């Protein structure tokens, strides 16, 4: 059996597309929260295959996109310090701060390195005791266990030159914020399978009941998403409000208790500002008091840096699914993947970047 190929069976995929199209009586507006899922939908053209049956609203689930401007500016301030090796996942390198991005800071001499794991950053700290190694701990609940692990291991081993710049966001409070909006059109959610792998889906059961809206927890392969959407359309057509789990091969209702325990040990829930959306109460994570020495904002005294966002960019409304990227006055003009104003244009998982690529095709065909 070849890896992943079993989730990429074209015959089965076409059957699911036919099923969804047959089953759906209207173009159900549903949101996939997670940017990884947006990426798959766009990459395989699933959104087009389902046109008329399901209208996919791309949610705020790109952690790169929602990292607040001031966090980026704090990252830059830390990265510029002589003694610092600043480490990050690749997708944060080009996210614009108020003046520049990490990649440009690197070009001007900052020691910024792309890593694949916070554990790699910790290893750098062990190897370079004379330097300060900082990891940009960004992400949803999915990345929280690895980040928590790195902090916990540094604590256990007494690694003094390692710290994390935390910008962790939580999915359920964001869904709540979206559903509190009286104008919302969303009728159903595809819940993120990786987040639920860690956290389980009990929180989504509460949300489903509060807002009378169905959820399907789904994975990231094209077949996962097609099957998840088929289940969601079934629920919508039958008017059922429940949470179903498509991603049973990874997700159980309680999530991963060991992962939740380490996250609980190292982090606590905190208020968080989402780029483009604004503050959402209890929607993020910060380090607990006893791990505060590993907090880079505290260690490098950058917590006071604060910034206002660009007034042209409508990233917030786009991330909430209220507007399309083409509604933005800067779209394709001041703002492009080469010169992004807002984060949804940076990440290939961002809605603006995805639209930008497709608009090029449409214009070329016109």
């Amino acid at each position, binding site marked *: 059996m070849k890896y992943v190929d079993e989730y990429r069976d074209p015959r089965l995929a076409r059957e699911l597309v036919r099923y969804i199209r047959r089953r759906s009586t209207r173009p159900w507006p549903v949101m996939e929260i997670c940017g990884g899922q947006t990426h798959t939908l766009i990459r395989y053209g699933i959104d087009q295959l389902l046109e008329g049956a399901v209208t996919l609203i791309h949610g705020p689930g790109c952690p790169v996109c929602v990292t607040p401007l001031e966090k980026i500016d704090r990252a830059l301030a830390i990265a510029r310090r002589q003694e610092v090796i600043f480490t990050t996942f690749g997708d944060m390198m080009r996210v614009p701060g108020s003046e520049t991005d990490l990649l440009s800071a690197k070009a001007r001499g900052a020691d910024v390195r792309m890593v694949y794991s916070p554990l790699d950053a910790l290893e750098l700290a062990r190897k370079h005791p004379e330097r300060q190694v900082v990891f940009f701990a960004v992400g949803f609940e999915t990345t929280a266990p690895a980040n928590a692990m790195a902090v916990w291991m540094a604590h256990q081993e007494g690694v003094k030159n390692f710290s994390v710049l935390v910008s962790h966001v939580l999915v359920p409070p964001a869904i709540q914020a979206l559903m509190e909006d009286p104008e919302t059109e969303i009728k159903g959610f595809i819940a993120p399978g*990786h987040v639920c792998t860690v956290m389980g889906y009990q929180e989504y059961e509460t949300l489903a009941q509060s807002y009378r809206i169905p959820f399907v927890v789904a994975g990231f392969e094209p077949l996962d998403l097609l099957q998840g959407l088929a289940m969601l359309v079934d629920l919508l057509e039958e008017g059922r409000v429940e949470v179903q789990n498509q991603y049973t091969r990874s997700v159980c209702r309680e999530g991963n208790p060991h*992962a939740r325990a380490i996250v609980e040990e190292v982090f606590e829930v905190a208020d968080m500002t989402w780029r483009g959306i604004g503050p959402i109460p209890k929607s993020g994570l910060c380090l607990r008091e006893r791990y505060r020495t590993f907090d880079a904002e505290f260690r490098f005294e950058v917590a006071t840096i604060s910034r206002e966002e660009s007034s042209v960019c409508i990233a917030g409304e786009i991330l909430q699914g209220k507007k399309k990227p083409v509604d933005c006055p800067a779209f394709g003009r001041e703002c492009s993947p080469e010169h992004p104003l807002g984060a949804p244009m940076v990440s290939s998982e961002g809605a603006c970047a995805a639209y930008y690529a497709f608009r090029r095709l449409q214009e070329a065909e016109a």
Partner: protein
Amino acid sequence: MNPSRSEQLVEGVLQQIWQQGGHAYGEVSVGGARVVVLLDLVPEVSEGDRIFFQGKVALSRVSDEIR
């Protein structure tokens, strides 16, 4: 393309497990490419299991159940 995407879950087959410095590690094969991941958060896994990992930390054992 997005090198080193932060939220990515990767699936692979656990080839070998060992203990080092109080932690469990495993070598995972993803279609023949091998990488070392931390197994502390999935203590129930054994060699030959399929797992999901993120940032070189295993997060779940992939069950055989595929709907």
